[in-house]
Structures are given as C-alpha cells and as structure tokens.
C-alpha cells in the first residue's frame, strides 16, 4: 500500500517536472546553477527518503513541514542548509544520506522552489480549455456570435484545428486575433490639407503623425495638424468590440466547436 502510494506520487512529481526555467530572476545570485540531472537524481532520493513525511510536492504533510517555505531550504547551498537542518531534527531523520545524495536533493528542492515562482512556464500541459459544448458553440458561431458573417467552417476555418498547435492557442487567437496570418491589412485614408485623399496600408499612427504604404509601394507620411482627416479601417475592430460581449461559456463552446474542424 505504501509502495503504491509512493509510485503514485512519483508520477505526480514527474508530471510537474520540466515546468521550470533553468534560471530565475529573484533571490541571490550566488546560488549554484540548477543542475537538472542532479535534480532528477535528487527526485529519487526525495521519493525514497523524504516523501512520506514532506509530501508529494514537498509542500509538507501531517508529519513533516513544508520544504518550499523552509528557511533552511531557501538558504541552502548544495546541502549546506538542509544537511544541518536534518541533523538538528535527527529523531525524525533516521535515514542515511551520502553527501552526493544530499547535493542531488538540494538541486531537486531548488527545482521545486523555482516551480512556483512567477517565471514558471507551466502552460499547455496543465490547461484544458476544451470544456465547452461543441454544438452550442456551432449555434453561437452561426447565430448570436455573428462569427459566420466573416468566417466559414468550410472556408477560412476548414481544418483550423489541424493548423493550430493546441486548443489554448486557438482560444487565444479567437479572442485576440492579429493580422499576422491574414492577407487583410489595416487600411488608412488620409485627407491632407491640400491635394486628394491618399489610401494605403497603415505603417504607423499616433496622435501627431500618420504614415502609410500606398498601392505603389511608396511610403507616405502626414502630420495630423488641424484640418487633416484620418480614417482607419481595422478588420479586427469588430473583434475588439466583441470582448465586451463574450461570455466565458460562449468562449469555451466556440473553441470546442472550432476544435472539431479537423
């Protein structure tokens, strides 16, 4: 029973491994560089000697304190902190550990600390966005969402699920589309103080200057002085407006529907 339990928690540990960056920006810089191979060995040391009391994620249990929040762990340099701490609580630490195992354990615990910091990169593996109802999403797509006004499951969205790396990315692209993968562009018409209006692709717009690339490929810039008129036609404007309308249920339903377009 105990053995089975350990095997299960090992699986949890393995599942969360690899979700950290090699380095972090917080904390002191004199910490030895995290050695991933040593951390992997340290994981085995932990599973064999520590896990039953300190828990599957080193966050503590009924018989052992949280090691992520432990000052001894946070101050540790290759066992300099955790070694004495274990000896100080000798009655609870009857298992023996070689110096090499102690160093490996130090790397493993440091990896566990880094796993919860701001820069952690746990992403797609732990995010499941396919929780919606595909049929409800299809109805929204063709109905109140008005998606079908511009998009089609047999046209521009044919096979979209096979062209998108994962469902999270699809959700992000649906909510915050860019023109990077589109032939459409932001189009601007400028009516200068003198001469006819000029139209072209937006290069840059701020409150004081506007510039475009016209159909002939020429760069044209105009200062937005009083009397100059600038008309911007952004194909994505409707998507920006939709951000105020979406419900989270509708988002999940539509993503579930789009993920069926394979």
């Amino acid at each position, binding site marked *: 029973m105990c053995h089975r339990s350990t095997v299960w928690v090992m699986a*949890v540990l393995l*599942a*969360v491994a690899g979700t950290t960056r090699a380095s*972090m*920006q*917080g*904390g*002191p*810089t*004199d910490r030895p560089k995290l050695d991933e191979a040593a951390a992997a060995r340290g994981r085995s040391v932990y599973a064999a000697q520590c896990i039953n009391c300190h828990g599957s*994620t080193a*966050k*503590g249990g009924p018989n052992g304190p*949280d090691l*992520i*929040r432990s*000052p001894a762990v*946070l*101050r540790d340099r290759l066992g300099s902190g955790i070694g004495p701490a274990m000896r100080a609580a000798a009655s609870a630490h009857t298992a023996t550990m070689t110096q090499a195992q102690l160093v490996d354990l130090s790397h493993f615990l440091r990896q566990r*600390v880094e796993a*919860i*910091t*701001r820069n*952690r990169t*746990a*992403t797609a593996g*732990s*995010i*499941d*966005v*396919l*929780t*919606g109802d595909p049929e409800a999403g299809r109805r929204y797509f063709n109905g109140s969402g008005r998606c079908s006004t511009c998009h089609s499951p047999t046209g521009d969205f044919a096979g979209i699920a096979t062209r998108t790396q994962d469902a*999270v990315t699809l*959700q*992000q692209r649906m*909510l*915050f589309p860019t023109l990077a993968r589109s032939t459409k562009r932001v189009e601007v018409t400028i009516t200068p103080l003198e001469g006819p209006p000029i139209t072209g692709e937006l290069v*840059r*717009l*701020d*409150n*004081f200057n506007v510039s475009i690339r016209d159909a002939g490929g020429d760069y044209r810039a105009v200062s937005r002085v009083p009397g100059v008129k600038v008309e911007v036609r952004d194909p994505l404007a409707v*998507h*920006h407006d939709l*951000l*105020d309308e*979406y419900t*989270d249920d509708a*988002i*999940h339903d539509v993503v579930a529907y789009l993920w069926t377009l394979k």
Partner: protein
Amino acid sequence: MRAAVTLIVAVSIVATLQGQGTVPAAALIAPGVDSWPMYNGDYSGRRFSDLNTVTADNVGSLSLGWTHRISAAGPAGGGGATAAVIKGTPVVVNGVLYVTLPDHVWALDARSGRELWHTTWPSRGGWHIGNRGVAVLGTTVYVSTPDCNLVALDNRTGKEKWRTEICDLEQFYYASAAPLVVGSHVIVGVSGDDLDIPGYIESHDPDTGAQQWRWYTHPEPGTPEARTWPSVDAMLHGGGMTWGSTTYDPALNLIYFGTGNPQPVINGRKRPGDNLYTESIVALNPDTGKLAWYFQSSPHDTHDWDATQTPVLFDGVIDGQPRKLLAQAARNGWFFVLDRETGRNISSTEYVKTNWASGVDAKGQPVPNPRKEPQVDGALVSPNQGGGQNWPPPSFSPQTGLFYVNATRAFSVYYLYENENDDKPQGWGGNDRGGWSEAMLLGIDYRNGTVRWRYAWDGSAATRSGLLSTAGNLLFAGDAVGNFVAFDAARGVPLWRAGLHAAITNGAITYRLDGIQYVVVAANDTLYAFASPPR
C-alpha cells in the same frame, strides 16, 4: 563576505556647487519651487507644481535645455537583467538632480545635466525590475537596492555612509521603492511575490540606519481582521508588498500607502476571505508604525492587481462640506475617494470599464465575481494583469479639481495551472495570457468619479508615463511611442509636443532655477530637460 562588499564610486568631476550642502526637514514639508525633493515632489502625492513660468499660453516657448544619457547600463552584479530604463522619478535639491537605476545612483547638475558623481552598488541579486528613486535629508541620499539594502550616501560624493538590510533576499524579497523621509524617519517598503512571504513596511533612523519599527501588512492573529484568512498559516504567508509610493499628511501625522497582491497570487481557492491587509490603502502613524485605518481596494484578489498606486491627498468639497480627501486610481480599474481622517469611503467608480466585479459592498469595496477568478479553462478578464493603472504616478490639480490617470483598458485570459490534485497552491498558481488593450489619458472629477475628459493615445496599447500638473494649467504626459505632450489641464487638449527617441518611462518633474523653469522626463535611458526662456 559582507565586509568585502564595498561601494564603487566614480567621481567624474569634483565640482563646486551652490548650496549642495544640506536639506533641512522643513524643506520637505514646504518644498520650494526650485526643488523636487522627493518621489512625488511633495508629501501630498499630487505631483502638482505651483510653478507658472510655463503656462498654457506660452508652453510653445519650451525648448530643449539639456539631455543626459545614462552611461552605465546593466546590473552591477547579476540578479536578473537590468534594462537601462529610467522608471524612477528624479529628486532635485540645491541645484542637484539625483536619478537612479537598480544598483545605480547618479548626481547631475540640474541646470546642465552634467554628471557630478555616479555610484554603483555591487549586487548580490534580486529582481532588477526598476528603482523608483532616492530620498534626501541633511547631507544624505537614501536609496533601496534589489538585494534588500537601504543605503545612505554622502550627497557630495556618493560614498556610502551606512547600509542596513531591510529584507531577506534568500526568501526572494527585493527592494525597488523610493524611501520617504518623514521627520526623523526613513520609511521604506519591500517587494517580492515569487514565494508566499509576508509584506511589511519599516522605518529607519536617518543618521544610523537603525530600525525604528516594522508594520506587517497582515492583521494580528486573533483580531477580527485575521478572520479574513482561513488560517494563521495562510495569513503569515499571504503577501501584501509595499512597493508603491507613500504620502504623508503632516497635520494628521499619518502616512498613507497601498499594499500589494495576496499570496498565492493567482490561485485563491485555499485562501477564502478578503485577505486583509492585502490590496488595501492603509494609514499609519509614522512615529509608531501603528495602524490608524484601512480600506481594501481589492478584497480577495486573484489577478495580481496590487493596490500600490499612489494614495493622493488633497482637500476638497463634497456635498457642500470641506473635506480632507484621499484618492486612488487602483490597478483593478476602480477610482476610490476616501476621507483621509477616517478611511471612510466617499465614492467608488470605474475609471475604465471592467468585467470582474459584481457590485460594491456597504464599505464601498468592489465585490469580486467568482466566475472571473482564474479558471483552468480560462476566464476573460478586464483589466489584464497590468491593470487599468500600474506604477506610473497619477496627478491631481487643485486648480482644475481633476485627478489625472494615464489609463489602460485591457483584456486577457486568466488560467489556473494548478493540478486538481494539488491541495496546497503556492506562489504563482497560474497566470494571464494574451490580450488586447488601448491607452488613454483621463481627467476625473474627484467629487463624483465622473470622467470629464478622455484623450485616446492612438498607436499606444499601454503607456508607462506618469503625470505632472502645474499651476500654468498644464498637464504633462507621454505615450508609448515617444510623444511627450503638454495638455490644457482643464480641457485635455494637447498644446505642445516633443518627439523623443523612445517611450516615456517615468513621471515628469519640474523646478525653477535662475528664472528658468525646467520640465524633466525620461525616455528609456535618457533624461530630457525642457526649459523655458528665463523670466
């Protein structure tokens, strides 16, 4: 080890300056127009100057007085990348301007931008995300460092007078805030939300650096406020950092500041309750560090919306009655006006449209909608993690009665990363991703929270420019593409503009020397000083 760490001081020019000598405490209570002696210019946090050499009528006569490009980019010693981006506010006293990056302090001639000295701190680490600037008193310049030191420098040379450790780098604390001198106290806050550690603010002796008091941003166990946490253990690991700016009312003898996000940051499922005193505006006695009152801007936050935005102090009239007021445009998109004697709420309004609150409770605090907490499959939230407002300082003009905010309206999706089997979330249990945003400058009527005017920043998704208003009916603001603009403060109409080489990255300051009014602002690594004709 510690003894081996010494300051490296490069004195490029041994200059004789008029009156560089000393800054009396009285100069901080009633600053002269020839100075900008603390982060916000004065204790009120209004970033309003009485100077009117430059006005809405003659602002076109502003021209480039000097520039100073920071010449020593990068960190002194590891601890993460330091981009040479000036995010702090320079301090000006006795004709000398002090400007900082993490681990660096420069003293410049405020008339010419010429370097007088540059001090580099050999860092032991910590986040190098930004430094907000120095405090001054007597002949001392005070600065905090990413590796958790409060350092006192000689204002003539930049040499270290003393240092004191204000936080534990090993627990991932770091320091970025500008210290504030109040009487015989140097008050400084701390940063750090990687791990689940408690926030606090503390006071030090200006002469020796000895700690005078520390106030933790959590309640005392056993008090009614402690019941806003599920356990003492959760509360003592509950975050609430103090990295914003502190303001001070000498008449009430209270300091005011906002506190940061609760921990764990994104996953709040195991810390049900309001989680006091995180994301709160608090008032303390600066002599004792005792709490006078609190108001929570964001109960039970799960979006990293630190309420560290400046609590701005001004007097006004509400319903015909003169009132001592405090206003904050919080990161969560809400604008709060409080009575600064009692902390009681007067009004709570959205300054940008948000989608996360279901209403306002009897205390005037927004009520979070649980459906807009981060979800494993994502929740579309506005504002995003950056917030409606962040660290760039706002401004209030008593001349117009308007509170100015360089605001962002932004959306992103908040995801929970925690495995469903993990019953003890820690640190960052998720994050937000993606988004769309638009930037705007707002003039808000403090009496009711109404946005009187709104100026959209075309081409800027978000700005990191702070604000400055002056008695010349001017409001100085910047965008993300290098436009530094003077507005008619009453109407929100641009009157003057300079195109700088990069995004505006701090709040502008102003001072007058020899009849010339200077307006100084940063764009990444460069200070630009605009100057009026002498009058």
